[in-house]
């Protein structure tokens, strides 16, 4: 009976860092990817050849490391081209598991892009912001997986444990990341609520203009626009430390335009 009176017990489920697999025959791109994602404390695995990629994915499976959050695959993989990225994904789907696949394109015509997108592939151009775009997707997938685990624990495991033991569980999944996110989130909410005119609509995003108070509610509820603004704070913080992805641009000739 006393167990039923206890407050919920917190259980901590540590998660690994966000994981990304990069398959591309462009060694410069692989080097940049490894440098960039490592600097963000992601677990990155990179393969230059199709054979290496298959071996690494097989090894990942055998060692039961779990699925990658994102697999970024060259749309024309191999030099010369050995396999199309979408065919690679179909061939090795059993090894990629639930990883979100992003096809990386150096050059693709509109028709081919439309066809791939129609098949459900996410296609990104090999632009100078590609790694930053991938990082956002990797974070989002990692966060989604965290949410899925929380959901399974709350909906499946927690009721069963309560039924058997009378103890209510409150899962804390990946507490470090969640805590960092919450810290940014509540800092932003506080900042928004202390604007001089918090009811004036000035924050335009997509088709809407939000006031500071309205945006604070979006951030609190972690809606898409709210989360975007929290991530925007993170980007601003990286910029203030001169760590943003376009870092190399900072050192151009100040007189040129």
């Amino acid at each position, binding site marked *: 009976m006393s167990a039923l009176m206890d407050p919920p017990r917190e259980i901590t489920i540590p998660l690994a860092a966000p994981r990304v697999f990069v398959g591309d025959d462009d060694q410069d791109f692989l080097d940049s990817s490894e440098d960039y994602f490592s600097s963000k404390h992601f677990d990155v695995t990179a393969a230059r050849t199709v054979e290496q990629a298959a071996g690494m994915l097989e090894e990942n499976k055998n060692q039961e490391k779990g699925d990658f959050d994102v697999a970024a695959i060259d749309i024309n993989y191999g030099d010369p081209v050995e396999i199309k990225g979408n065919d690679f994904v179909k061939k090795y789907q059993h090894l990629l598991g639930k990883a979100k696949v992003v096809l990386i394109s150096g050059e693709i015509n509109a028709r081919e892009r439309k066809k791939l997108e129609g098949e459900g592939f996410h296609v990104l151009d090999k632009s100078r*912001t590609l790694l930053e775009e991938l990082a956002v997707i990797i974070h989002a997938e990692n966060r989604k997986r965290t949410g899925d685990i929380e959901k399974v624990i709350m909906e499946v495991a927690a009721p069963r444990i309560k039924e058997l033991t009378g103890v209510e569980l409150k899962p804390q999944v990946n507490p470090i990341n969640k805590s960092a996110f919450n810290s940014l989130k509540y800092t932003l909410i506080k900042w928004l609520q202390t604007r001089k005119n918090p009811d004036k609509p000035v924050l335009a995003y997509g088709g809407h203009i939000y006031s500071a108070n309205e945006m604070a509610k979006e951030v609190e509820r972690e809606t898409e626009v709210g989360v975007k603004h929290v991530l925007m704070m993170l980007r601003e913080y990286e910029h203030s430390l001169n760590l943003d992805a376009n870092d190399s641009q*900072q050192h151009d000739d100040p007189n040129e335009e």
Partner: protein
Amino acid sequence: MTHNNMTTQTKSNLADGGRVILLCAPSHDELTEYTSKLLEAFPDLSVPTVLRKIDGPLTYGQLLLELELSTHQRAPDITLVFCGHAEPSALLVPAYPPGTQGHKNSLGPFYDNSYVDLGPTLMLAFCCSAAAGLGVSFEHRTAGRSFIGFKDDILILAEEGTYADCWRSILHRITSALMSISDQANLEKSVRKIYRDALAMFPADKDDVYDWGLMMRGALLQQQADLKVIVT
């Protein structure tokens, strides 16, 4: 000279085969009322310039006819600057005339993929997502043309004063760069420098002066990250 929602040169001046800047400014809701003002008093770039405020249905083709700039032999070299709502495959304007139901909320295409072959030579799409669709069309279907836009929804701090002056300066300087630089690497370099200069206007140690400084930096960084510069 203001005429029919249009600040314009005479039509004969426009269709002389030279260069023309078309500033297209939908103005029908809170956001577009703000962005349309950014195109007012556009600094002189020594090129005939038309500011067309758009408060009802209009297509790019209709605008060319209206200005007598349609496909005749003396068709000029057009730079289109659009500020407003968009989706990847289209720049959007009100779908219905002012005063009708749904005027503020219903959007229809001003410029979509069907117009890409018609022009313009240079386009600045200061709006959400157009680079993800129209930009791709420019990249694959055109030659000798340039496009600047964004790949995703963008943040805009819709406040007056220094903030609005900053957006105006960005629009003016990007348009100027678009018209004077014809290789992709240098154009992109130039546009990114414009954004860095804008960021320098709102340093963190002046956040006590600029109440929205943090958000302005965030918006500028986000736009910079989603920027797409295409020269074909």
